[in-house]
């Protein structure tokens, strides 16, 4: 028994000695991680009502370094409530992170609901990133799926959070209609360049567009019996909890 204790002690001491030999590795950073830059994205045929199809892009961002070659990535459709479109109503064209870039995009061709029969006006498809030889789903865990909706009607633009600092603080379809009418734009890429065109607005161009929007609203107010009002809302500023934005029905106040 005594020898057994001695032997046990020796083993214990040796174990202590060897624990310093193991390199304490930091959990490796997911250098192949890829995630979407948004959780939802809306597209609208309102500017091209006669078109049968259009192509829209969803941006992704890599966790690791850039490389000197294009890196395709893989997405899959997530069946369920988030996917109301059938396979014939959309087509994934490609999904690539270009050489030297931290951002990439998946391009999807979607069909105009107004040109289809027997379909709702709003269609949706939910995508998720799946592993391939270049990337694994990783990064911001809430951003591994994206829900793309498209409609023949007005849809809240992808860049509304940028628009609200230049045009109007509150979103409504009437605000969006006036932006399109006065400025001829459907998106306002201020924080980041447009994934398709690479164009990025600065604040000074925003001032000019905001003034055009403001002039349009002021002209409307001067030429109509009633002022231009919010016809609906996006659910924000709902202090009474009725599910409807409190500003619905209020006059639209331009920021410039």
């Amino acid at each position, binding site marked *: 028994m005594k020898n057994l204790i*001695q032997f046990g*002690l*020796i083993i214990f*001491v*040796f174990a*202590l*000695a060897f624990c*310093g*030999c193991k390199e304490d590795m930091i959990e490796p950073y997911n250098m192949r991680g890829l995630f979407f830059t948004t959780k939802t994205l809306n597209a609208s045929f309102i500017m091209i009502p006669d078109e049968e199809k259009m192509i829209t892009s969803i941006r992704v961002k890599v966790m690791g370094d850039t490389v000197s070659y294009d890196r395709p990535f893989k997405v899959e459709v997530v069946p369920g409530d988030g996917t109301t479109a059938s396979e014939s109503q959309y087509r994934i064209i490609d999904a690539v992170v270009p050489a030297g870039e931290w951002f990439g995009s998946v391009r999807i061709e979607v069909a105009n609901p107004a040109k289809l029969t027997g379909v709702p006006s709003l269609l949706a498809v939910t995508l998720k990133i799946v592993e391939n030889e270049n990337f694994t789903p990783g990064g911001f865990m809430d951003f591994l799926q994206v829900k793309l909706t498209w409609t023949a009607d007005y849809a809240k633009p992808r860049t509304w959070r940028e628009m609200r600092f230049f045009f109007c603080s509150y979103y409504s379809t009437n605000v969006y209609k006036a932006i399109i009418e006065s400025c001829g734009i459907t998106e306002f890429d201020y924080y980041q360049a447009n994934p398709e065109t690479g164009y990025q607005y*600065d604040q*000074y*161009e925003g*001032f*000019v567009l905001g*003034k055009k929007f403001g002039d349009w609203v002021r002209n409307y107010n001067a030429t109509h019996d009633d002022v231009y009002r919010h016809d609906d809302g996006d659910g924000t500023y709902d202090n009474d909890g009725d599910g409807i934005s409190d500003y619905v029905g209020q006059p639209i106040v331009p920021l*410039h």
Partner: protein
Amino acid sequence: MKKIIIYLIIVFPFLTTACFKDLGHEWDRDSIPEIVIDTTGIPATLSVLQFDHLKVAPTVSKEGLTAADFSYKWYLSYVMGYPGEERAYMPDPISTDAALDYVIDLQPTSGSYSYSLWLQVTDKTGLRKDFRWSLLVLSAYGDGLVIADTKDGSTTDLTLIEGRSFTEAWTQDDRISRNLYSVKNGEAYAGLITNLSPGWNANSTGGKRLYGITAQGDFVVVSAIDYSLIGKNHDLSYDDQMVFKATQALETSTSSYSALVTDGKIYPMVTSLLPERFHLSMTENYSSGGVTKTNYVDKYVAYVHGNGTWWGIWYDKNNGAFIGQKSSYPNYSGVLTPTDKDASSNFDPLDVPGRETLYAAVGSQNEDYFLMKYGSTYEIYTVTNNTGMARDKITIPGSEIAQAKFFAVSERTKTVFFADQTAVYAIILSGGTPTVKKMYSVSSGEITAFSVFRQAWYLRNPSLYVSGVGYKVPIANHETMLLLGVSSGNSGTLYELPLLGADLATVDNSKVISYSGFGKILSISAQE
């Protein structure tokens, strides 16, 4: 137990081995000789004139090796800045020679930005040693005088004169660089640039500019680094509704705004953008006496260089009033403010209806000068730009002013200069009674351009103009010399007229210098 202690003593050294750094390899490493790049005599920051040869020849050695045992790669960044990331902007080696001799055609550097030159030396064993220099690229064209002229009556070209009269620390013979615009852009500018003034782009890769206004009121920006066309009219505006009937371009101060007076409005121009851009015009409405009034800028603004209390004051033609903006720069969203009067004012600045502004500028002693036409009467109004208070209304005596085509003031004296087709005059305001004095007559041809010489850096940053160590002092001709373009048909001569006396109302005829060989001279400006 004794055995346990013995075991522990035996084991203990093993437990502590991780507590000591293994220095065993240090000696071996130090024994390998390094490549030595000797840069003695070569500054850490290199500078070279644009389009000139950059020559760098460090001495490379390594114990036991000869010159033939090294290979070289010289890399040069093609963008300024990005310290620590330069290598990303160096695609291919520019040379593989031991000594670099390379023509630099990069854009000149500005501000604190520089390019990087990177040398990689590899020996026959594969070991490499690097060295990096900062590189400043200097403009091939320095400060001096730019003359816009036309040889065909419809297009404009630019000539730069660098010389002792216009250029700091210039000691050699004058250097005249002609046709700079057409050489750079392939052809002369289509249009007549009748108003040329210095400008500045505050972007890190921007730099010195020239602002031009044509006879038709178009606005054009040209780089004063290489004379490339930066843009014209709507190229430079986010507002596609902006109307270009420009009358005056303003390089206001060291802040990131210049401005343009056009079609009765003032448009701030954001000079931190590339290219510089107009966005919204300044506010048009202002409150005066409890009434909202709509402003119409009458062609010219008296604007303060640097940070003034009122950066600019002008005549609002709609309301017959002198108004301005109490701001250090043209602020598109800032309010406009009427000027005021006090006990020492001899006119009401808000009750001067029916005038036409012929000229407006900052004169001496913080006074803005406005030359106004009222029917057949010509008047000078002065308003202080630090208080916004009206000062004097002066009726210009004599009949000469009725033929005036060009005007100028010097910030050094209370004298206003004007020129008609053949002569230059001074309106001397320092005495009790204003007098008009003929200063100079041209013997042939007609005067087609006229200005006071004012160094361009002073316009952009007059706060540098403070006596003392480390500050800039303008050259002697600054504000004390008139420039005259005299033309016959489509040929012209530039005259510099040094001025004498406290009033600067006398031309020093013994020192008049002329420069010939121009087309019809349209406008004259200093450049940095």
